[in-house]
């Protein structure tokens, strides 16, 4: 005869020790929010002879995480076959995940020389060249009719 499982026989559901997870998430989140600090954008002054420079950078950080827990109960299949008496099986589970990425890019340099202070921009030629090639590609493709909507429709229809 199958014994009826009581509530106390159920496997522990909640105790996916939440405290270390919460602490880890809190630490990650606080480090993530620290990206908004002004010190993340302006570097330490670097002195070379009479000139001091302060590097500046743009910082972009993304973070996302989520978690979930669930429980369930129902008749145990094996016991259901052996006996007509109802027996309850229960279980629970949980999981979570997340990810993040930080990008940083130099923007300019603050130059302090004697009494003269000025900002020297940092130009990333590679990025500008890539943008120029993309723009030229757009224009060339349109010029040659590759991006013509009519032609695209005809190709889709198989004409």
């Amino acid at each position, binding site marked *: 005869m199958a014994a009826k499982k009581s509530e106390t026989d159920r496997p522990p559901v909640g105790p996916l020790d939440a405290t270390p997870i919460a602490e880890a*998430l809190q630490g990650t*989140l606080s480090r*993530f*929010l620290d*990206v*908004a*600090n*002004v*010190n*993340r*954008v*302006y570097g330490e*002054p670097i002195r070379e002879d009479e000139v*001091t420079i*302060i590097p*500046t*950078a*743009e*910082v*972009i*950080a*993304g*973070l*996302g*995480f*989520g978690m979930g827990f669930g429980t369930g109960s129902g008749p145990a299949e094996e016991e259901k076959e052996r006996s007509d008496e109802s027996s309850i099986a229960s279980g629970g589970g949980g999981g979570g995940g*997340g990810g*993040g990425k930080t990008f940083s*890019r130099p*923007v*300019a340099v*603050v130059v*302090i020389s*004697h*009494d003269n*202070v*000025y*900002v020297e*921009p*940092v*130009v*990333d030629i590679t*990025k*500008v060249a890539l*943008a*120029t090639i*993309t*723009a*030229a*590609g*757009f*224009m060339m*493709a*349109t*010029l040659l*009719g590759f*991006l*013509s909507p009519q032609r695209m429709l005809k190709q889709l229809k198989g004409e």
Partner: protein
Amino acid sequence: MAQPFIHIRTNVGKAINIDGSTIVPIARSVYIRLPLLHGGVIWNRPIAVLVRHNDGTEYTLPVHDVTRRLQVLTLTIGMLGALLFWLVRRSRR
């Protein structure tokens, strides 16, 4: 209280004294919260430095992102050029 979806803040850093000049860094951060998820996106960038000399003169030097401006300008020209070519081709048919 619910936090706003987009949070824009101007942050002023600690003043730095160099050769009789005081430099105050200023940055702007944009925090976008992801709906239904924990976390978000933070975009932090320098916007200006406040310069204060010993003789009392004070001025603000803006920090321009020349790379970003050139990228946006080039891509805008490309898209407008492509649109123009397309309109010319269409009008000729």
